[in-house]
């Protein structure tokens, strides 16, 4: 047994190093199309474009970003899954595209694509303009109980469900407005079209400037910029939004391409002083790189657990 294990380790090492060697040699057979599942101009889009720009500079590849938005990232998944698997098409999506969106639409599974690498997590919080006068989500619930109509901006179907559950657990009805991208939520808040909304992290600047407040953390832990903001569990809500941005490729992607692209993206995302790294630092609490089996397990976990939220929001 021990011997078998040993040889397995050796084999794995050889395989690992040979892929790594492949990865070093790998060059894309043409320009790489980078599908972006997020609306132009938002935080996630900016992140993807900065990575594209730095990949071009660092690797000498040609990267062509293309927006394929909508349907919680499924449009982007559909656009990438049957593309040539030679590394010339990748897509930046968010983990919930392979989780909640797939479960809710009853189409596809995480195995439809090849997972490449995550870039960053999110600092998902519930935000409002500071001049509304609310300090926590509790103030908003009080206002709603007092008869005020509250418009709640969300950017994914999963967040819409969470918003609904928050209302349900606290005996109020929010008017939930679905928009495309966190930028649209920020614009909606600024224009007075919405009262509160989810922010995935790009609100950091406005929060620091005192223009916006984070009313609650939608993560399982407190937000980096507003450590005192309550958690959703304080309001009887068992669900959180632990999203991570990730790059995927077509199904059965060339392993050399996968490894090369993963390490190239990880390099630019973590390079100190780089534009992409600085942006991730500012907006999303820094780079977070997950690859290989660890990534596959995380994504599968999110897929498996999505059913509970859907069920909670359905009744």
């Amino acid at each position: 047994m021990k011997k078998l294990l040993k040889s397995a380790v050796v084999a794995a090492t050889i395989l690992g190093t040979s892929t790594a060697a492949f990865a070093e040699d790998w060059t894309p057979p043409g320009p790489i199309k980078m599908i972006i599942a997020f609306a132009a101009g938002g935080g996630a889009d900016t992140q993807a474009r900065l990575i594209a720009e730095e990949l071009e500079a660092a690797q000498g590849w040609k990267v062509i970003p293309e927006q394929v938005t909508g349907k919680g990232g499924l449009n982007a998944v559909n656009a990438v899954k049957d593309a040539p698997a030679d590394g010339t098409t990748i897509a930046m999506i968010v983990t919930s595209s392979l989780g909640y969106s797939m479960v809710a639409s009853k189409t596809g599974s995480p195995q439809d694509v090849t997972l490449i690498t995550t870039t960053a997590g999110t600092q998902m919080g519930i935000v409002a303009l500071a001049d509304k006068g609310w300090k926590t989500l509790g103030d908003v619930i009080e206002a709603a109980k007092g008869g005020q109509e509250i418009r709640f901006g969300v950017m994914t179907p999963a967040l819409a469900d969470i918003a609904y559950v928050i209302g349900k657990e606290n005996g109020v009805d929010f008017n939930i407005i679905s928009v495309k991208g966190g930028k649209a939520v920020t614009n909606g808040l600024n224009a007075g079209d919405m009262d509160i909304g989810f922010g995935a992290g790009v609100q950091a600047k406005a929060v620091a400037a005192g223009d916006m407040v984070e009313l609650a953390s939608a993560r399982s832990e407190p937000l980096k910029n507003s450590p005192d903001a309550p958690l959703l569990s304080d309001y009887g809500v068992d669900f959180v939004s632990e999203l991570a941005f990730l790059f995927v490729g077509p199904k059965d992607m060339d392993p050399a391409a996968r490894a090369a692209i993963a390490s190239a993206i990880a390099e630019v995302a973590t390079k100190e002083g780089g534009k992409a790294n600085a942006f991730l630092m500012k907006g999303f609490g820094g780079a977070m790189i997950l690859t290989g089996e660890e990534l596959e397990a995380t994504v599968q976990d999110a897929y498996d657990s999505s059913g509970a939220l859907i069920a909670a929001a359905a009744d």
Partner: protein
Amino acid sequence: MTDLGTLDYIWLGILAVFQGPEAFSLLGVSVSITVMMVAFGLILGIIVGATPGLGGVIAMAISLPILISIFGFNSDALLPVLGFLIGVMKGSTVGGAVPAILFNTPGTPDAYMTTLDGYPMAKSGKARKALKISHFSSVTGDTFSDIVLIVCAPFLAILVETYLDLPEKTALLILSLSFIAAVVGGSAAKGLLSCGLGLLAVYIGTGEDFYPRLSFGSAALSDGIPITAAVIGVLVIGAIFTELENLWHQKRHTGAIEVAKDEGDQRLHWADIRQIFPHIGRSAIIGTIIGALPGVGSTLAATIGYATGKRIYAKKKKPEDPEFGQGAPEGIAATEAANSSVSGANLIPVLSLGIPGNTAAVFLILAAESIGGFNPGPAVFKFSSDLNPELVIAFGLFTTMILANLLNWTVGGVFMRSLGALVRIPKQYLLPVVLLLTLASLYVQETSMSAIWFAFGFGILGYFMMRFAISPLPFVIGFVLGGRIEDTARQAFSATGGDPWFLLKSPIAAAFILCAFAVIFLSLRKPKVDIT
């Protein structure tokens, strides 16, 4: 970071244009890429304007995908590309007058009225003077219009954001579409048809549902129709097909073109300017007002400017002066100032509301959407104390417009007067080349053959629309705005707690909807002339 005020934003916008990435340095002064691109755009615009059969739209359609593939997709690319398009837009209205004056052939449709007085002036040996008058009037009108844009757009945007809620915004979008459908083209019914087809096309494969709607299970349709393919197909390829067919039918006029020799004084004197200036001023105001309404084009502005000028001129002229239509410099001034002053004002609804009013605006929106980082609409004009990059781009855009005008004032006139020969390019060679270039540049941007097939399909649609005198403009604007209308309506519906009557509950929204119906109703009642 220190707080940013309005003046800081204006200054940052100007800096963004002049201190952008350097193209080359001239005698130690560095010239930014944006400045260079504005100049290139202007020159290209004047050339295509002066070539009958080509125009600003074709030039923009071909150059946009090429420019995007050169400059890439980051926000540094915005100002050079948008500046280039603005240069083309401004150049083509100036250039259109050249063949109109010299050869009685308008280079662009809106220069038709220029032939009425320009050609008689040229025949009587005053060609250079006519060109100078046309240039002076054109650039003056354009500059005036830009100033109105720069002053009005931010206020209008702030007004919209302050006073309009989601239901009102939805109603405003519906009103703009119905206005465009009613005023563009031969009849309101045809306008509505065109607009409806545009909406139908954009709703294929889009939407919030998890299945691709209207796609009949076809994989090609399930991702929706690429916007560039649809717009270029209907507008440009459709127009090329129509032109080719016209050539087929009418044997080309091959007679030698008559060129009169210049005689006497060709200079533009201060007295001349004083004489034509009231006409320029009046036409500039007319053109600016018309330009600010979405969908109403420069040809109508030229017609109204000319007609108004003619009426007033007939009362005031001295007996020895030529009539309008017999070589009156005032006629050229009234036309050119009116058609050129449309271009700046046309951007008012684009920048403040995100609603494109003409084809040039559609290409600016296309450019902004393809590159990313700039979403024309009211949210641009948020004067936040920490940096709002979109606002900097907006002021950068204004700077490129002023820059284009300055270039137009200085070198544009000289360049324009040297382009008389372009009228001789035979269309039967020109059109196939343009078709090929258009398709090639589309492929450069979309990198898929399906985009080419879509463009071809929409080209055939555009051809039939033009054959049946249906303007393609409502189609294109419907296509561009369709997604926005759906999103805003969905949001308004949820924001009002699922009220199905949200469009009629607030007085402003109800008034907009009432106007939308009234516009269609009124234009269905009265017989109309083609004004595009």
